[in-house]
């Protein structure tokens, strides 16, 4: 993409060609390149072949990007800015990008699963119309899902890596726009899905506007949008305090919206419920990792000298996010909405790691993100397998007695719920322990007390689901469990990661610690 620009301008002379470190940003280029190739496949490959071409292409792109990230991580010189200072390539970024790519691979297993048929045959057909029935009966599938997915993943890779706010905004939009679209493509309950997409789009545009205004104010303050320059200007304690504080507040608003922190969480339950479940799995894992990566970079680099200014507000946000997420989740009766509120509560736990603003805080947040991502993908994979005649059995009452009907799948789901609750020997415990330890060391003990209390509240509704599954009588016309190989693979991967990160967490903890040693580049 960039090569033709530099080639076209170099002979002219006046503008020197930009210097792009292709090797260091290859994972991003690879994923976006596969997305563009996917668009070409849509244009030139016949309908019968598209699915068979798109799926391996997407797998290769994500796996290639992941392999390249590992190679970059193994070399020691990865602490530099690339592409004219637009992207930072450093330990935390590579860890986050690797996590996003591997979680996207697991989500792709769910998305590519033809058996569950989560996506609309034709998104443009009116819900309930004759056209919709006809296209569904004809077995058409909307293979545009794959390039859109790759675009979104490309944006997710750029978002936490961007070294200036402008690139960050572009990454945010590249990540969000395909997700808005993908949310509206659910095969069942089309109206709910479209409502979710419109809600997500409108609220997301609003938060993007706030984010952009925050960038403008910070530019007014520092005269630059580079994170390092903003930090230097703030360290000099010059310029207008109003612009700086206004900028921090608006920027944080945009980022907190993407994390789904209270009070910017309103979209999360509706969108998680309405979106096709594989896309929900993608959003709950990869988008959260990416948004937290950007949050960490902004607050650890640009606002590092201003911890006294933003910490009190973050304390408040973190506390109400943990408590509200856990308490409202108790009242939910839909399994996907419940998992959405659980995700909100986990965003609160993760924020305690951000508030610690220490090396331990960074490494523990990185570990928590990886651990939580695998567990949540696995949990949503299980949700896709429990099916009624009309699609997934979303209502909690339909899950009654699942433990008697299908002990294996109910047992696996129970294990994921225990991991969310943070029971020892699961990855959830290790992650929570790590972030809370970092927070205590950074003198945020009250925050940790609130965190432990809301973990206990959250454990109540996780256990309630387990009780419903194992200790109530199954209904006569209860849902059936349909497990196809791809979904089974996703569940097994999620389960394996949850067990391994719970029982033998040290290698990954070391990896996260090693990634965090040099902190972020600037």
């Amino acid at each position: 993409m960039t090569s033709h620009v530099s080639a076209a301008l170099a002979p002219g002379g006046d503008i020197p060609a930009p210097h792009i470190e292709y090797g260091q940003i290859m994972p991003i280029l690879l994923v976006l390149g596969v997305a563009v190739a996917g668009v070409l496949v849509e244009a030139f490959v016949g309908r019968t072949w598209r699915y068979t071409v798109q799926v391996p292409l997407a797998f290769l792109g994500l796996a290639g990007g992941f392999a390249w990230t590992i190679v970059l991580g193994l070399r020691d010189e990865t602490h530099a800015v690339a592409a004219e200072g637009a992207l930072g390539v450093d330990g935390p970024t590579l860890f986050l990008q690797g996590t996003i790519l591997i979680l996207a691979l697991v989500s792709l297993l769910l998305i590519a699963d033809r058996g569950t048929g989560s996506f609309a045959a034709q998104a443009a057909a009116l819900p309930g119309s004759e056209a919709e029935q006809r296209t569904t009966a004809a077995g058409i599938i909307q293979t545009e899902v794959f390039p859109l997915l790759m675009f979104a993943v490309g944006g997710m890779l750029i978002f936490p890596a961007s070294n200036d706010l402008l690139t960050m905004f572009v990454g945010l939009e590249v990540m969000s726009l395909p997700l808005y679209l993908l949310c509206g493509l659910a095969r069942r309950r089309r109206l709910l899905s479209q409502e979710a997409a419109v809600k997500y789009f409108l609220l997301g545009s609003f938060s993007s506007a706030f984010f952009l205004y925050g960038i403008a104010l910070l530019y007014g303050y520092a005269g630059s949008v580079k994170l390092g320059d903003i930090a230097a200007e703030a360290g000099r304690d010059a310029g207008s305090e109003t612009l700086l504080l206004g900028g921090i507040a608006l920027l944080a608003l945009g980022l907190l919206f993407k994390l789904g922190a209270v009070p910017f969480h309103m979209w999360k339950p509706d969108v998680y419920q309405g979106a096709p479940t594989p896309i929900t799995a993608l959003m709950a894992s990869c988008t959260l990792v990416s948004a937290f990566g950007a949050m960490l970079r902004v607050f650890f680099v640009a606002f590092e000298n201003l911890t006294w200014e933003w910490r009190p507000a973050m304390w408040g946000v973190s506390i109400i996010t943990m408590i509200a997420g856990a308490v409202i989740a108790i009242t939910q009766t839909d399994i996907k909405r419940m998992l959405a509120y659980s995700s909100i509560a986990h965003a609160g736990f993760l924020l305690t790691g951000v508030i610690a603003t220490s090396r331990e805080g960074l490494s523990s947040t990185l570990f928590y993100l990886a651990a939580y991502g695998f567990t949540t993908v696995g949990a949503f994979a299980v949700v896709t397998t429990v099916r009624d005649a009309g699609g997934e059995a979303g209502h909690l009452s339909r899950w009654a007695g699942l433990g008697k009907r299908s002990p294996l799948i109910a047992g696996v789901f129970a294990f994921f719920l225990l991991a969310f609750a943070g029971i020892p020997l699961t990855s959830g415990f290790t992650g929570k322990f790590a972030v809370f330890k970092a927070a205590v060391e950074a003198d945020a003990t009250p925050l940790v007390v609130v965190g432990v209390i809301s973990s206990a509240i959250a454990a109540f509704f996780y256990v309630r689901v387990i009780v419903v599954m194992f200790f109530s009588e199954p209904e006569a016309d209860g849902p059936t469990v349909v497990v196809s190989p791809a979904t089974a693979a996703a569940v097994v991967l999620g389960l394996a990661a949850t067990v391994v990160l719970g029982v033998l967490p040290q290698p990954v903890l070391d990896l996260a610690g090693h990634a965090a040693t040099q902190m972020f580049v600037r």
Partner: protein
Amino acid sequence: MTGQEIVFALLGAVAVGSGIMVVTTRQLVHAALWLVLSFGALAGMYLVLTAEFVAWVQVLIYVGAIVVLLLFGIMLTRAPIGTAPDLDSGNRWIAAAVAVATAALLVTVVVMGFGDAKMPLEAGGGSAEALGSAVFRTWVLPFEVLSVLLLSALVGAIVLSRTDIGGARSRGKGD
């Protein structure tokens, strides 16, 4: 007060005034035309600030393309042309209060932030050359990624609107 400042203030008044007309007029087409005036005044303000390239881009894209697109949109969706009393929503006073409060907040922040700070105007600061070297050198990566964003938006628009598989026309999604 210099001539530049007077012209700038007048153009600002025109932009705000026509912006108010956009949201208060009862005719849809008139609103689009008032928008032309608002965008044009904004382009004039860019010109006064010596950003001539930005000014022409504003004219070409906002006045030339976006408003024309809006007019086409009104025409093709067969919206009623002429006075439409239902353009006013019942929430308009609440909306006005929110808008005024937001404007007051933004103006306060900018006034408190910059106050009487003066920046000398430099000729050529917003020229095509300066912008070109910024876009194609410092900002080349975000610039190229933006083209990817446009591509994904195009693909998404096709996904949401292409009905030729089933043959049925569907217009106005979500109703």
